[in-house]
């Protein structure tokens, strides 16, 4: 059932009192659990649980011609699919806006951070390069898929092992060895802020996300101890005030540090 007016108004009231149904504060994340090796056929894979939200992400390597405007770089392709399995609201058929956005946002956050050195993925310059495929699949949508998916993608990339090219130029997946060409310390993460009434929250449950009237997602990474914003996207009909955006910029560095510390322990 689509969210009702009364529940939406009630959530706005709760948030304005700094309260949430599950007792969290407005800027608090749910418990995060991460595991790897979801599929032994993937070069790298991760399962992320953020509260009851569960997302699996897999990394596969293939070979292709490079893009015409970057003959000396490998390719990166990030796709999200909202499987009908994960929510009564997801339908079969061509990808919805949310599915398209999921893939594209994670793509931009990772690509712009420079985490992957695409120039090291060339096999034959101008002819043959590696393509890194990142595939994102929500398994249970209880809100905040983008932030969860981003975590999964980064962990999958960092734990992935490179396949080899054998003498005949074919990919040998059985003998994977060595990491992908990634910058060690770089850990791009996405943070989505949701607005309802005059309140801003992070990590909504599905109910809270359905009530929200706008969202802005930032992709962040850290380089030489400096926090860098790599990407940003706002959706929704209402506005964010200057003050609200400034406050987000104030709290982002600390949120990033806390989360990346937690995740580094997984690796």
């Amino acid at each position, binding site marked *: 059932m689509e969210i009702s007016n009364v529940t939406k108004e009630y959530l706005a009231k709760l948030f304005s009192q700094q309260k949430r149904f599950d007792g969290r504060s407005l800027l608090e994340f749910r418990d995060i659990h991460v595991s790897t090796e*979801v*599929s*032994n*056929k*993937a070069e790298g*894979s991760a399962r992320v649980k953020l509260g*009851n939200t*569960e997302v*699996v992400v*897999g*990394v*596969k390597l*293939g070979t292709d011609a490079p893009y015409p405007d970057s003959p000396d770089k490998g390719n990166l392709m990030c*796709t999200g*699919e909202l*499987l*009908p*399995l*994960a*929510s*009564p609201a997801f339908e*079969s058929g061509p990808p919805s806006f949310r599915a398209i956005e999921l893939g594209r946002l994670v793509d931009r956050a990772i690509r712009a951070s420079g985490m992957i050195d695409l120039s090291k993925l060339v096999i034959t310059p101008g002819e043959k390069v590696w393509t890194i*495929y990142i*595939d994102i*699949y929500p*398994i*249970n*949508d*209880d809100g905040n898929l983008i932030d969860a998916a981003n975590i999964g993608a980064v962990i999958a990339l960092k734990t992935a092992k490179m396949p080899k090219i054998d003498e005949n130029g074919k990919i040998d*997946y059985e003998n994977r060895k060595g990491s992908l060409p990634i910058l060690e310390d770089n850990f791009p993460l996405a943070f989505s802020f949701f607005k309802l009434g005059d309140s801003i929250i992070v990590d909504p449950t*599905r109910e809270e996300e359905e009530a929200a009237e706008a969202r802005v997602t930032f992709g962040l990474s850290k380089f030489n101890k400096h926090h860098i914003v790599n990407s940003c996207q706002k959706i929704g009909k209402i506005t964010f005030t200057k003050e609200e955006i400034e406050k987000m910029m104030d709290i982002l560095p600390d949120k990033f540090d806390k989360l990346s510390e937690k995740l580094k322990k997984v690796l």
Partner: protein
Amino acid sequence: MTKEFKRLDGRKYNELRKMTAKVGIIPNADGSALFAFGNTIAIAAVYGPRKLHPQHMQDPSTGVLRCNYDLLSFSVEDRKKPGPSRRSQEISKVTGWSLEPVIDLEAFPNTVIDVQIYILQADAGTRTAGINAASMALAHAGIPMKDLVCSVAVGKLDKDFVVDLTKEEEDFEDGEGATDFAMAKLANSDEFSLLQMDGKISPERIKELLNLVSESSKEIYEVQKKALKEAITHE
């Protein structure tokens, strides 16, 4: 007929791979389950009975079972592009037909029961693992069923029978090669709801395969029952 012959992973000819089953893995779904044969892992979610859109597809005399099976792109060695392949469309159909006999769809006119099956990791027997998962998910969703459905692939490597083939065994080429026969049957009766094979096998030997499936189904049924009952007692 079947002497003590060695399988690559050390199993006896009629030994199933280690099975894993868990119910309730997807809170949003009305029913959900995971089922694995060794390295082949399937998850299934059931939503319904629910409204069927578009309305003109509704049937006032009966509910509709809509089954969708697919591989996740990283479940196989060569990445599978997102989107249904012809193979997955075919498996979706035969899987639906393997489950329908146990559901009284006429009790839910104008509705749809959606069954979604995805393979996380593929090492042969994906459709059989999918059916075993879907059968549990349907029961978990509270759909009235007259029985559970148990599925396994049986076959022949050259002249030797085997149960629950791995991918390596499916690719066997010596002698008569590999015959791979996926079957599903109702747990408590001799009714078979899935029959799909390719290879070379005599009609006589198929009869023996039916018996092998009946035996293996008993083991599968125990695993399914245990997982379903745990969902009740651990609530």
